[in-house]
């Protein structure tokens, strides 16, 4: 290929990554969060590094993501946007893999398709801006798989080192990312054993290093799992649940998007199997990329059926980079027009995904209106009372804990200027008799919502 082509391809990929980054960043200028994100903020804001490790040990997810968020917050402050940027950074890093590894190894067409597929899968953009660990998992698992390929192809220790680090980070970020990392090691090991006809020592060493460094958390995981057998929030898994995983990953506001992606998945498989007969490494690698999420899901479902439900479709998110690369490898060699139409379709799906997420981030609740009103109206001595106890840690993301009191714990006889009552229309109710007893007036302000929980806001004063 001519030098000019290289420059233009690189430039095009950089432009694509820049545009995608702008799209992600444009989704973070809000204070909209859901329960799990509130958990992240609560954990990071109110703990030291040791505290985070201790707290995560009694929760379900490993601590690395929270520690990364802790470092970001320590440097840049505790705003909502900083937390959301923590999740965008790994999305950018994952896209940069297209320049660093994918383009040199598989060509620019594959690199472009990787970026497009990664962002066109409807579930990815949603979690790319959420204050959760999934985008970091996507990065670590993608890096691990590419490093495994790099080691197979170039036999360089550098890639084995990257694989070791990426797998270890994945293990400490999410339990199912750990399982995906294990399958990457297993597939790599099987491939090397078949190719070299002996147990590959370096592979064994790398796996052992990851295992040894993971042992401390393995004990924690064992306790966490034992404590949750029979009492975890995930519901039982049946045939419909498993079929529903496809919809969870590929469904969007455009009807039948799941079917379209499943058709692409089927065609990819066929193409990669055919390619395996001609170009063993690429075709086989592509199939392995799809097998990692399939085996991860299979193990998750098996554990859920045999022990207790532990698996949901969201836990496949760490493998989305692999899926994108699998698609890209399969269709990266298509002829000009076929390739262009696929790219245009994916651009269309990215637009659709962005529109959906924009609505979700900015228009699905009126948190902004509520916070704006409270900023204007609330005085320093005011108290906010609420009757939806489960949401206390979510309210704490927006207001100082000292201003927040659960309805049943509040003494209406104390001194205050105003009481703002967030009434989620659930028990406990605020009896009119209490208001009469203290000579209080209750004035309806408006109906607002936080995290899809609508509530009526009242001002209570003497």
């Amino acid at each position, binding site marked *: 290929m001519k030098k000019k082509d290289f420059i233009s391809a690189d430039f095009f990929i950089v432009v694509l990554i820049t545009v995608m980054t702008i799209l992600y960043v444009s989704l973070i200028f809000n204070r909209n969060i859901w329960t799990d994100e509130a958990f992240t903020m609560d954990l990071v804001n109110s703990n030291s590094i040791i505290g985070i490790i201790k707290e995560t040990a009694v929760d379900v997810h490993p601590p690395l993501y929270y520690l990364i968020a802790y470092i970001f917050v320590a440097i840049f402050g505790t705003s909502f946007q900083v937390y959301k940027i923590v999740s965008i950074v790994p999305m950018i890093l994952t896209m940069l893999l297209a320049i660093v590894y994918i383009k040199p190894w598989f060509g620019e067409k594959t690199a472009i398709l990787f970026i497009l597929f990664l962002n066109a899968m409807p579930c990815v953009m949603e979690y790319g801006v959420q204050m959760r660990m999934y985008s970091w998992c996507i990065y670590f698992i993608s890096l691990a798989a590419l490093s495994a390929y790099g080691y197979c192809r170039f036999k360089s220790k550098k890639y084995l080192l990257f694989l070791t680090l990426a797998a270890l980070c994945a293990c400490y970020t999410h339990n199912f990312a750990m399982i995906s990392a294990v399958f990457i090691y297993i597939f790599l090991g099987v491939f090397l054993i078949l190719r070299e006809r002996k147990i590959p020592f370096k592979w064994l060493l790398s796996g052992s290093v990851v295992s040894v460094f993971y042992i401390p958390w393995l004990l924690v995981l064992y306790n966490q799992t034992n404590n949750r057998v029979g009492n975890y929030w995930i519901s039982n898994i049946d045939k419909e649940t498993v079929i529903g995983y496809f919809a969870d990953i590929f469904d969007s506001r455009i009807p039948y998007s799941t079917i379209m992606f499943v058709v692409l998945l089927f065609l990819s498989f066929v193409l990669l199997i055919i390619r395996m007969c001609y170009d063993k490494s690429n075709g086989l690698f592509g199939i392995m990329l799809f097998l990692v999420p399939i085996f991860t899901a299979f193990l998750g479902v098996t554990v859920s059926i045999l022990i207790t439900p532990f698996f949901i479709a969201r836990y496949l998110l760490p493998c989305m980079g692999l899926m994108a690369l699998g698609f890209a490898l399969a269709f990266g060699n298509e002829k000009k027009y076929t390739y262009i139409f696929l790219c*245009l379709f994916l651009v269309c799906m990215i637009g659709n995904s962005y529109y959906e997420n924009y609505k979700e981030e900015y228009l699905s609740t009126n948190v902004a209106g509520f916070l704006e009103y409270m900023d204007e109206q609330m005085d320093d001595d005011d108290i906010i009372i609420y009757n939806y106890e489960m949401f206390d840690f979510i309210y704490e993301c927006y207001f100082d804990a000292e201003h927040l009191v659960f309805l049943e714990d509040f003494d209406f006889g104390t001194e205050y200027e105003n009481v703002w009552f967030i009434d989620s229309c659930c028990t406990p109710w605020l009896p009119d008799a209490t208001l009469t007893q203290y000579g209080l007036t209750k004035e309806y302000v*408006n109906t607002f919502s936080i995290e899809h929980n609508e509530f009526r806001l009242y001002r209570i004063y003497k």
Partner: protein
Amino acid sequence: MNFGCIASINSVTERESYFMKKMLIGIVIFFLIIPVDLINFNTHEMSINKVAYDETFPSIAHGNTVSQQFVPQYNYIKRLEIYVREVNCDVSQGYLKFCILDAEKEDVYEIKVPLTEMPSPGWYTIFSDIEIIAGETYYLTIDAVEVLDEGPRLAFFTNVNTAAKEEEGQELSYAGFKVENGNLKVSFEYMKPLHKLDYLAYYLFAIFIVSFLVTKMNKIRKG
């Protein structure tokens, strides 16, 4: 950028490329002239009251008809539901009669449901898959007929802020009297046509698939 164009074009590949171009232009034109109605994909949209403590009508029996005026947003209602707060009545006899009347109070849809089918409490689907005219005024009327006592308790609100979009500025009446700021607790689920721009995804996908298959078939044909 090189999108896989062949560096040295011989006459055979040139002919194929020409054929591919013509075929793809044909496909694009075909998809562009297909009326969207022919592939008419629909999407769902829900409309429901805002949150509040609800109240119940004392009785919807003995001619105490509930009538909620509403203006639908779209032409096809997939599901229209009302909220039954409780069924603490004798359900051995009687039924609930639900009617949708047009602006001239002519019957458009009517259904009778035995009391035994009512949830207590819960949402109950009174009409499904019905066609209606968006923007026109309709009335949803509810009566308990041939019941032995006061009948089930249906939920409503007395707050103008809680109205579903269809109920905004419309009237709720009970036993012939207007309920001030009242709105019935209802849920509208519509099937609405997909926006024309959204069809672009289907067109591009279809063109890609055709182009992909033609390319592969050509490859197989050439061995």
